[in-house]
């Protein structure tokens, strides 16, 4: 009920008082005061805490845990009302945190490190993906990539300025290849250069685009494979939960409640037993992806969220964060070390969500 309607209700109540006896007058006043107190936040209880949460991208399978937590009342159980906002290339959760437009967000490690290098008070409270979803798709009958040196002479799609460029340059450096020995092609909106085989390798997210494109190409009789940077020791950290240092200092309970609900959502979403509910949760927003594909996407997402070492959901992989910083430093993305490990904050008293 909005304040205007509460006042109107109160005025109606006062008119009513003239017509009824004293004992009922008292009860009515108590009820009206209770309504007012609730609506104007007097004695507000934790159940009404509202937080804003900026995702990294549009809602798809990469956000399954987030939407699962929302739709299955996990935030509500923690007394939170979460306003989930979709992301996009022009959205930057870290910038919004500083401007006060959001309370929590999803950002990749390179964004966190860039921001830290420029003095942003951002902190990381969980790492959602234990493996980076970014890989390169290629036609097996055209390219046989068994080692990084097989990249020599290949036309490779990269999004200049984004983390796939840095990852590919790191892979090339590892293979001892320089830029003249490969052809880097600027990635744009569509996959035409890859489909028409102008490009040999094209970057995709293994849990979303790769599932869809892979299926299309296999249906068309093509054999495709993927180049995973992690197989070659490059572990560039992807989606993580960020908030401001101030929020963590001033409202640690709120942070704890939010994170507890969110990680519970992720644990439930990737549990095989909840597959149908998880797909339904995403499907509510993502109406363009076929349901059958979504199950495959969920399967691929499950492998990103869980770690081989059996760490809890949201575990922050310090070694991978350090490597990400080192790579960015090597490629001139930052001028000096930012000691990113100092930005990783374990939230006290968290009951960790074990892998299902």
């Amino acid at each position, binding site marked *: 009920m909005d304040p205007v309607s509460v006042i109107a209700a109160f005025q109606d109540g006062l008119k009513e008082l003239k017509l009824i006896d004293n004992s009922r007058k008292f009860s009515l006043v108590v009820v009206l005061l209770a309504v007012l107190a609730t609506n104007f936040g007097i004695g507000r209880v934790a159940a009404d805490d509202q937080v804003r949460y900026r995702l990294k991208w549009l809602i798809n399978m990469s956000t399954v845990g987030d939407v699962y937590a929302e739709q299955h009342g996990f935030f509500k159980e923690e007394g939170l009302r979460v306003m989930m906002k979709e992301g996009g*290339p*022009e959205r*930057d959760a*870290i*910038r919004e945190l*500083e*401007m006060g437009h959001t309370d929590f967000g999803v950002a990749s490690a390179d*964004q966190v490190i*860039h*921001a830290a*290098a*420029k*003095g*942003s*008070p951002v902190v990381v409270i969980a790492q959602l993906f234990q493996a980076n979803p970014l890989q390169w798709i290629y036609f097996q009958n055209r390219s046989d990539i068994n080692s990084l040196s097989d990249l020599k002479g290949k036309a490779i799609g990269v*999004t*200049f*300025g*984004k983390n796939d460029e840095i990852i590919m340059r790191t892979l090339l450096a590892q293979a001892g290849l320089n830029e003249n020995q490969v052809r880097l092609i*600027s990635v*744009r*909106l*569509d996959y*035409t250069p890859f489909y028409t085989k102008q490009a040999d390798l094209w970057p995709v997210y293994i849990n979303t685009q790769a599932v869809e494109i892979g299926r299309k190409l296999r249906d068309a009789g093509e054999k495709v494979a993927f180049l995973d940077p992690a197989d070659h020791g490059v572990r560039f950290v992807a989606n993580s939960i960020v908030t401001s240092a101030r929020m963590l200092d001033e409202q640690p309970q709120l942070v704890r409640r939010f994170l507890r609900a969110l990680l519970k959502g992720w644990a439930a979403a990737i549990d095989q037993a909840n597959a149908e509910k998880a797909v339904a949760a995403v499907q509510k927003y993502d109406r363009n992806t076929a349901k059958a594909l979504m199950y495959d996407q969920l399967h691929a997402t499950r492998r990103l969220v869980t770690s081989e070492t059996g760490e809890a959901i949201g575990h922050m992989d310090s070694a991978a964060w350090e490597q990400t910083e080192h790579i960015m430093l090597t490629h001139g*993305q930052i001028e000096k070390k930012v000691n990113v490990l100092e930005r990783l904050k374990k939230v006290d008293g968290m009951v960790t969500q074990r892998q299902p």
Partner: protein
Amino acid sequence: MLLRRIYQFLLIYALGVSFLIVLKYALGLSDYVIPSLTVLWNTSHEVLGAYSIDVISTLFVAIIGQFLSILLALLVGISGRKATWFGSFIKVAAYNVQAYPIVAIAPIIFILLGDGFLSRLLIAAMICYFPMLLAVVGIMSEPVPDIELFYRQTQRMRWQLEVKIRAFENLSKLTTVIVGSATLAMAGTIVAEFIAASEGIGYSIRIALYQSDLAKIVVALFMIGITLSVYQGVLEGVGQIVKRTWTR
């Protein structure tokens, strides 16, 4: 004229940057959200050379795109100036083409033509063509009775003469529209580069956005603004020369 354009731009740019700096210190924002003057200065040293080449590449495409759109607008405007069936058809077709937002058509253009020069040119031309067309159709459909009557009565009126009379009588209006459309041509080219091309200042802005580097974007805006001011100043100068030559 040229100097006035440059002064005006510098003033607006300085005001814009000052606003950002005031906001930065008033809200205590880091350099990640709004870069400090030192960061801006260092970034400009770092990227000015590369951005100058980018902005010249963009301007080159914008000029050709604008030229094409002027030609097309004149063609459609002259063909559609008569209140005939064909004139109406040309006008309706020309208006309908513009009804589609360019960002919706752009992906089709990029798929068909790739992300090279032609796509950027076509999008630039499409964005600045419509206001040009409106102005040209307006001017060409409006008779100049005092002068045209004489030629009609002496049976010496030809369509070329009619176009010439109407263009001459509205030369100031035409010059203003052409100068204004330069901004649109530049904006169109930048939009095309931002969406999918792999060169030009729009492409550099996209990369800066991916890197969350506002300093680079502020420097790019400076380059775009100063280049556009010079180009518009030159166009205004050319308009004055044409007018002087015609009235001689």
